[in-house]
């Protein structure tokens, strides 16, 4: 089982679209996938037409009054399940703080699913908090979707500083550009000359495309209504590259 998180301190950068579309692709390939919509705004749940509600809320899950397995919902797509968002997730930091080893608790909740799922994708809330730290601890890879702008680059730098100061250098980080509009000078400049060598940006980039926005109207992954679109093709390439990076990482670890 591999845990992949889609994360950025900033909101509105395409984290949810990444999780929903990569989850769909992995499932369509024949892998059993689970998406956990950790963002209390519940966008991933919305895309799958699943009510953003978890009985007993985050408290029930972390205090083991309700098993995580009992709140999983089947999506309308084969191999693809979802744990919905819940408004109570906004208090997740406080809940984590209350228990022992707060950073490890999320991982502990997910570990028992190793036999049932091949990939778990986490749609993370935009912040840098204890929840984020737990995600960094649990994840095998951290996808960082970024709009090619100066402010985005700044948030990435902030995150990298945080990583260094929190002993997270082993975390497999995969930043990549989203909502790319090559007509814009700055976008072109940053995409063609990614400012960082380490961690290296993924080559795949997601274009600014109306069909990606339409996921909110169709309430479904891109592939179910625009399978041959430019956006869909970009997500396919992104998934291939993510798998390759994960594979390389496996080999590196021996």
């Amino acid at each position: 089982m591999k845990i992949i998180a889609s994360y950025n301190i900033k909101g509105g950068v395409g984290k949810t679209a990444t999780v929903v579309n990569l989850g769909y692709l992995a499932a369509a390939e024949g892998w059993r996938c689970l998406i956990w919509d950790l963002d209390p705004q519940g966008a991933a749940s919305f895309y799958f037409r699943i009510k953003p509600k978890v009985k007993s809320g985050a408290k029930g899950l972390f205090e083991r009054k309700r098993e995580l397995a009992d709140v999983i919902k089947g999506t309308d797509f084969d191999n693809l399940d979802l744990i919905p968002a819940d408004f109570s997730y906004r208090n997740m930091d406080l809940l984590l703080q209350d228990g022992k080893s707060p950073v490890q608790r999320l991982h502990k909740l997910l570990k028992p699913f190793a036999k049932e799922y091949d990939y778990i994708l986490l749609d993370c809330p935009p912040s840098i908090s204890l929840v984020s730290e737990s995600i960094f601890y649990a994840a095998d890879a951290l996808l960082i979707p970024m709009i090619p702008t100066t402010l985005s680059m700044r948030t990435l730098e902030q995150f990298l500083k945080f990583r260094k100061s929190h002993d997270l250098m082993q975390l497999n980080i995969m930043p990549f550009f989203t909502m790319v509009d090559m007509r814009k000078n700055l976008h072109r400049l940053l995409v063609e000359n990614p400012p960082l060598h380490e961690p290296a940006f993924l080559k795949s980039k997601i274009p600014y495309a109306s069909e990606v926005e339409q996921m909110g109207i169709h309430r479904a992954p891109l592939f179910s209504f625009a399978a041959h679109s430019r956006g869909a093709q970009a997500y396919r390439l992104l998934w291939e590259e993510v798998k390759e990076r994960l594979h390389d990482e496996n080999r590196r670890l021996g």
Partner: protein
Amino acid sequence: MAVCQDFSCRKSPPAHLHLTYYDTFDWRLNAANLRLYRQQHEQDSQLVLESLKGDVPPSFTSLSTVPKFAWELPASAIRQYIEPIIEMRALLPVAEIKSREDTLRITNKEQKTVATLTLQQDDIVLTSNHRQALPPRLVLHAVKGYENSYQKTRKKLEQDIDLTVLEFDQLLAALQQQGIAVNDYSSKLKIQLEPQARADLASKSILKRLYQTMLANEAGLKTNIDSEFLHDYRVAIRRTRSILTQLKGVFADTSAEHFKQEFAWLGEITGPLRDLDVHLLQFDSYADNLPAAHRAALLPLKEYLFQVREQRHQGLLQDLASKRYTTIQAEWPAFLDKETISGELPENAAAPIQELAKRNIWRSYRKVMKQAGALSMSSPAAAFHELRKSCKKLRYLMEIFQSLYTGNEIKQLIKHLKILQDNLGEYQDLDVQSLAIKQFAREMEGHGIGRSDTYMAMGILVGALQQKKLAVHQEFIACYTQFARHGVQQGFAHLFKPVNKQLELSQ
């Protein structure tokens, strides 16, 4: 439909599906409570794996053709799950169904599917132009996390339309229509013997079963479906030989001698092909023995092994088409069906089978203990090889006559024997394999196949195998000690030692 008055429903266009179920020749997927099928719908084709017990979530993977072996499947959850179950066995189509599905998706306020109700009309494909229709069924599928909706719909169907719930297995229904019994083949020798049955009749019943196993595997080994047809065929030959050579005085000497020779010949003509199968089955572990940089260089060896295998397979086909084999096929079943005339009974023919089994297993066990006791770590490899052969003979006898013993004791003793036998087997296999690889290298060089890096990789492999052989040999003492310990000895004596000898000891 009544359901739609109470729930929000969306009708999907009718789907015409073509389902092909797969399993191995020895029904490994069925034994693991799994169903594997390819579902074709218009241009789409996907492979589906379902668990009958519901302990594994169903998995789906898109693919146009189903490969022969699990390792040829695309990387997917299905492959990960079934590869350790079916191992080297080929996936064979076992049933074909053409199905029309009319599906209603039951949805909630968000238009999310919370259950599906499908009217399913199946036609079993018997031949290309002959189909058998099954009664239509309504199938209600639950969606994870929406069990309430499933229960409500089910209640509605049961109460308002008066439908009853039916346990239905589409594969079993299809097989039944074709007259195929699921689990109609197993490589295990399952035969219940009566302890007091006459030795000759009981032995013949085992030999008949073994002959059926040979026949069941013949087509598969001739058409090269997978390596296990030949393997099971050879195991049946060896078990047959064990009975003929070890149960003395049960059959007339002349007949026993004649068939002993014929089955020895069958063992000889099938052996070289099996050796190559073992090399090919172990090829990945051969490569694992090498440093990563040398692994690719070993591939010409694999190609060469396939090439030689093809030649040996052709040779075997010629042998199996020979007059000698045809004669065995006529004489052997005739011998097995022939009734023995009471006046001419050989000395042990009428003895109770259990008594004879006991005596032979005890004798065989004593021989193993004597040979093993005389060995030291510096004994020649040939002496260990002799011990391995004796262990094999003992194992066959114990397996053949297992049904005469109730309880778990015999199974436990077989397990102990197996530990010793596996050690001896691995030791000898590694020896034979390293010699064979040297020989292949000479042959490949002679034929101008392979490059210098291939020969170098083969050389490293031989070195690695020989090192492994030494390590295995070091484990012999521990394996023998567990087999020779007092409790195991007592177990053998308890089950197999003739009573008069036990009395002598106790006095």
